Structure formats: structure tokens, C-alpha cells
């Protein structure tokens, strides 16, 4: 979960990292008051959870409080990358002698936290890494042992920082490491960390990401920062469809209907679970299909959860048919998902055989599931039909020119059949039916 710059600065302040004089404003008037208090030229910065503020006109310089107020007015109304700002940060513009970069991240290969420090601050650190790798110092540190300041000192010294600078920077970098651990950050970055003309150091911009999984145990900090429990802080704001998807998941604790994400295609997807959904979404696109949504169902959902998710997807404007597909399941029951998706179709007044382009979920309780699908004439497939082949068949059904709402019996003799009572015996073995 990404923190706003003004929140990241609060975290730095409470851990004793020096900051440039600043204030957070939600209005033009507040911005003017902060600029007056600072009493020198300021910079007004949009508080949005996205990069590229400068380019988008979200960062402006002001010499007077009036100018700061005018900039604040403009920036507060400026949408950047689909986000409206939370407010503006009014920051003093002190004369800077040199800019540094200081960061702490996890190194996923070494599986330890690591420092990243450079005397080329103020620009994208990935760019520095490519063009001037020798100007970046790195160093891992233990998370089992208490943090030792010499780890920070070593990183600084490795790129030639010495003298008074070394002794002033060591505690700053050490504090950054400690807060990274203490607050479950996955990124704690000060860029730039500025050396002022008087030789002191201050953080001029900060970026922090906190691990979502750690939110419960970081509740005290989040409360202090005023972060609401319902703030997702995703890369983009959730849509109405996505919020409804979350509701479907949360009202029933049985199973998971996660990561419901809206796209603008015509093929609704009821897919699962983690890796299966990634594979199937790609498969639909690979065969020229246009998914209306992404989702991950699994963990043995109830009939009602499967039904409610299916209803949500079917009700989305533009959705012609749905494809119900998963990789082989062992925990989730095929028959329960089958019941759920058929229930959803019937309750919305649709013929399941027409609305469900394909049902491909092999695994636990598949024989029972396939019997139910057979009864309603829904095309289904077991593990002998690959995930990509299932996706291809689904795509074929929605993109056929002028196919309309009626199924094409010529193409699939089973699909249009009326519901029957008797479950066919031949399914008992493996169900090798359904070669479309």
C-alpha cells in the first residue's frame, strides 16, 4: 500500500529524520498560510499516488504566499494519471548543495533487505543504476539481529562518502532502515535527500510502500496517519463493478471470489484460482477474445458465492456469454461451482446452455458437476481439453458473426438440448464427451 508523500514525511519525522520545512494543505487558503509561515520561496506539490507529477504540471514553484495559493488552486483541480490529488504539499525551497538518493528495499534473490544509496539523487534511481552503477552503494542487513549502524556507514563509505557528511548521513540511513523494518515497509525511499548549503541534510521528497498483509498490525501508525481501513490505494481507483465484486466476496466467508477487475470486452469470465486465472485470461486474449472481467474464484466457494459472482458478471453491460474455467481443482468442488453458475443464469432468466459458452473445471466432484451441466445442456470439458482449447471454444462462440443469442445446434449438438432428468452413465469414468 503506497503512502502519500505527506504521510511518508510524517513517518520520517516520527523516526527522527530531518525534513525540509513543509505543510500539507487541502485548500488554497491553507496553502497560503503554510507559505506565510515558511516565509521564503516554496514549491507546491500535488499529493497523488502516481509518478510523473512534475511532467503533468503537479509541481509548481512560488515566490510569494499569493503565488503559492494560486498554484494550490490549480493543482487541487488537476487530475494526474486518473487520480485527483488528496491535497498539496507546500515545501520550503532551501538552497541545495547536493542531492542524494537513499532507499531501503527487499532483495528478492538474496532474501534480505538492502540499502540503495547514491550521490546522484533527484533522478530515477533505475536510470542511475544503468548509466552510473559505480555511483550506487548497496548492502544487505539482518532482520533477526538488531540493526547495527555500521551497516549504513559501510554503504556510504563504499561510494566514497567521508568526513562530516559520513557522520551526518549514517544516522539518517540507519533510521530509514529501522523504520523500514518497524513499519513493514516494502520500499522506503528519500529522493532527494538534500545537503543544504549550511552542510545539514534534509529529506525533500519521500516515497513509502507498506505491505498490505501487515496493515492489521500497523493499525496504530495508520490511524495516526489517518489512513482509512477501506482505502485500497491500488494503482487505479476501483470501479463500481469491482467494488460490487468485493462485496460479493465479503458477504460470504466460504471460498474466495477475489481480484474482480473490470475490462471492457464481451466475454464474461468466471475463472480461478491464482495461476489458473492468469493462464486463462491470457488464453482468451491469445485466441482473439475480449474479456469483460478478471477474477479468481477458489478455496471451495459456496453455491451462493459462485452464483452472486456470476450474476455480477452476467449483468455487466456488453457481456454476451460467460466462460467458466479453472485449472484442475482439488479443494474447490466442481459440482458446487456448476450449481452456482446455473443458478445465476436461471435467476436472471437466461438459458444456461446459451449463456455459458463453456464450463471447464476438472477435479474434485467433477462427475457430479458434469451431470448437472449435462442436464442443462451446458457444454463442459474435463482435463482432456486443455485450458487454452477451452478458452478458444469460448471465444469462438462469442465472436461468431451474427451468432445472436441462440445457440447453433449444427456446431454443438449437445448445447441446445432441453434439460433432462437422467444423468448419463457414460460420464462415470472420465467424461470424454464434448468435442465441440
Amino acid at each position, binding site marked *: 500500500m503506497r503512502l502519500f508523500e505527506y504521510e511518508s514525511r510524517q513517518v520520517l519525522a516520527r523516526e527522527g529524520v530531518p525534513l525540509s520545512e513543509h505543510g500539507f494543505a487541502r485548500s488554497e487558503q491553507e496553502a497560503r498560510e503554510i507559505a506565510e509561515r515558511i516565509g521564503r520561496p516554496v514549491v507546491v506539490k500535488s499529493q497523488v499516488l502516481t509518478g510523473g507529477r512534475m511532467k503533468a504540471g503537479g509541481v509548481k514553484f512560488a515566490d510569494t504566499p499569493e503565488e503559492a495559493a494560486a498554484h494550490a488552486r490549480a493543482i487541487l483541480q488537476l487530475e494526474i494519471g486518473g487520480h485527483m490529488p488528496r491535497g498539496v504539499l507546500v515545501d520550503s525551497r532551501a538552497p541545495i548543495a547536493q542531492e542524494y538518493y537513499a532507499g531501503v528495499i527487499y532483495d528478492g534473490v538474496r532474501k534480505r533487505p538492502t540499502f540503495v544509496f547514491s550521490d546522484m539523487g533527484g533522478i530515477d534511481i533505475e536510470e542511475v543504476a544503468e548509466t552510473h552503477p559505480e555511483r550506487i552503494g548497496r548492502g544487505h542487513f539482518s532482520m533477526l539481529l538488531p540493526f547495527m549502524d555500521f551497516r549504513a556507514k559501510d554503504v556510504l563509505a563504499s561510494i566514497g562518502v567521508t568526513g562530516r557528511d559520513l557522520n551526518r548521513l549514517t544516522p539518517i540511513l540507519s533510521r530509514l532502515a529501522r523504520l523500514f523494518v518497524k513499519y*513493514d515497509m516494502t520500499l522506503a525511499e528519500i529522493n532527494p535527500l538534500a545537503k543544504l548549503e549550511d552542510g545539514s541534510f534534509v529529506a525533500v521528497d519521500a516515497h513509502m510502500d507498506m505491505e498490505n498483509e501487515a496493515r492489521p498490525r500497523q493499525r496504530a501508525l495508520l490511524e495516526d496517519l489517518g489512513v482509512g481501513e477501506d482505502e485500497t490505494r491500488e494503482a487505479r481507483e476501483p470501479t463500481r463493478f469491482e467494488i460490487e465484486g468485493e462485496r460479493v466476496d465479503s458477504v460470504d466467508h466460504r471460498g474466495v471470489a477475489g481480484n474482480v477487475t473490470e475490462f471492457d470486452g464481451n466475454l464474461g469470465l468466471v475463472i480461478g484460482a491464482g495461476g489458473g486465472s492468469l493462464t486463462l485470461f*491470457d488464453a482468451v486474449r*491469445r485466441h482473439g477474445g475480449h474479456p469483460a472481467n478478471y477474477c479468481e474464484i477458489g478455496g471451495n466457494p459456496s453455491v451462493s458465492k459462485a452464483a452472486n459472482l456470476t450474476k455480477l458478471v452476467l449483468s455487466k453491460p456488453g457481456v454476451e456469454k460467460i466462460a467458466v474455467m479453472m485449472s484442475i481443482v482439488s479443494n474447490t468442488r466442481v459440482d458446487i461451482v456448476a450449481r452456482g453458475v446455473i443458478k445465476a443464469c436461471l435467476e436472471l432468466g437466461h438459458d444456461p446452455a446459451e449463456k455459458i459458452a463453456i464450463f471447464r473445471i476438472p477435479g474434485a466432484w467433477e462427475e457430479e458437476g458434469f451431470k448437472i451441466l449435462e442436464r442443462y445442456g451446458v457444454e463442459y470439458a474435463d482435463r482432456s481439453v486443455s485450458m487454452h482449447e477451452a478458452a478458444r471454444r469460448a471465444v469462438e462462440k462469442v465472436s461468431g458473426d451474427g451468432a445472436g443469442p441462440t445457440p447453433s445446434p449444427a456446431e454443438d449438438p449437445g448445447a441446445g438440448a432441453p434439460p433432462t432428468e437422467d444423468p448419463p452413465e457414460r460420464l462415470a469414468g472420465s467424461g470424454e464427451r464434448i468435442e465441440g
Partner: protein
Amino acid sequence: MATATSVPGMLIDADTTFIVQGITGREAVNLTRECLDYGSKIVGGVTPGRRGREVHGVPVYDSVAQVTAEHRVDGAVVTVPPTFCKDAVLEAVYAGVKLVVVVTERIPRGDVVQMIEAADAEGARIIGPNCLGIIRPGVAKMGGIGGPARDAAKAYAPGSVGVMSRSGGMTTEISSTLTAAGLGVSTAVSIGGDAIIGSSYAELMPLFEADEQTEAIVVYSEPGGRMEAELARWVSDHSSRLPIIAFMAGRFMDEMPGMSFGHAGTIVEGRADTAAEKIVRLEEAGIRVAQEIAEIPDLVRERLGTAPGAAS
């Protein structure tokens, strides 16, 4: 009497003894049943405060040390809730357990790093977190991988291909495809879907390399992280006898930086994390990247130099 524990060459074998931590939880009860039915040796379970109970005939203890005092314990499957998971893993590691499979998901990264650091110091190996475990088809399984014994037998036939996957479900899908094609599986490892995991592809490669049964490797990968780049580097640095086929899911995520789908570890944070970049890296190292799961058996045979249709 307790004797020295060891991890066999290919993680588990018929003699591997293990415990289930959090054994009285709903999922753990199922997992215990499945593993026992498959022939695995579970010598005890741990749930603090539940000493004296039994789960499918497996005695429950209050602590790992109580089990190790009575039995040789080669491994542990950890299924406790995220809040208590770090302590459970540390308990196993410091009790001398050398193989810890962490099933639990949603564990904060800081906790995972601490577990791994402790395991490194004690000479233990962690698989996971957020994984389904390990299976040696026809021999033993450790974790929920493949589901009930009957289902696991259907998807996993003993064979020649090692499988490593960041997705538990896709481990079974791929293995089932290999089984249906007559190639079968030597050992399959669900390595976990988190950004930081105990054992990456590259770290498990030497084990497969030394395993006589394994003739080829299939890996399932996703966007996010540097694990595929690490594998590519490992392959370039070592003259491996094993051909590797990879499958990359989540290609659509390249267009959606900053968002995470499927597993916690999938977020694209930099250029090197994208599916497209990973595919380039893997292919540069001579690892063939399949477009579809169904192509994998033929690609394996092609690389093994055996004619399509010839069962191993």
C-alpha cells in the same frame, strides 16, 4: 528415540517423517488425511494447548520439541494463521527440522525474511510460503498438493519430468498434462506465490540435477520478481544436463504496472519484472518458453530427443 534428521537428495522420499503444525485447523485436518492416504509418514501434529488429542490417528503435541524428543522429524508442514506463522517456523527450525513447507499465505515479507534468515543459519530449507508443498508421485507427498490421494494419483504418475511452479493449482494442471502424455513427473514442487520465498527455481535446480529420475524440468512462472532472471543466470553459469521448458502466465499484466493479480508476488515494479522481459531472459539462456500448457509434453520430448508419442 530421536535420531539425526536429514533431507534426502530430492527433498522427500518414502522414509521422510514430518509433522503438521497447526494440525487441528480445518485445512490441516484434510491435508493430514490426504498425506496419510498417499503413504506419507506423519509422526505428529502441533497445536499449542491441544496436547493429547489425535487427528486421523496422528498424536497432537504442544510444541515441536515434544515431538522431536520422541521421533525423528525430517520435515514440517506449517499451516498456522499468518500472525503466528513466523514463530511456528522458527520453532521448527530451531528444533532442528531441516525441511519446512510453509502453506500459509498473506505473511508479511519481513516475517518471511526472518524465517529464511534463521533457516539459512541452521542449515534448513524452506519451501513457500503460500504453496501447496512437494510430491514425489507414487512415493510420498508433503502438503495439500494434488488434493486427496485418489486425485493426486490421477494427476501425478511417476515419471521423468521435474516440475517447479509459483502456482499450486498450475503445478497439478501441468503435471496432469505430463501424466496424460505418458511422461510423468519425478518430483513436483509448488514453490509459492509470494515475492520472497524460501526456495527459488535456481536454488532447487541442483537437487533436480542430482536426481537420477529427473530428465527434464518444467517451470511455471509469472510476472513480478527476479526469480526467472536468477534461473536464467543459473543455467548460463552451470552446464546443466536438464532441458528446461517454461510457461509464462499473466502476460496481460505487462500492460498494468503497479497492479497485482493471482499471487502477491506478481506485481510489476520495474522493467525486469514484466512477462515479456522474463521470456527474453529465459530464451537467451536456452530455456524454451511454451505458448500453451498443451505444447509442453512435445517440447519436453523434442529437447530430450525422443520421438513424440514415445512414452518414457
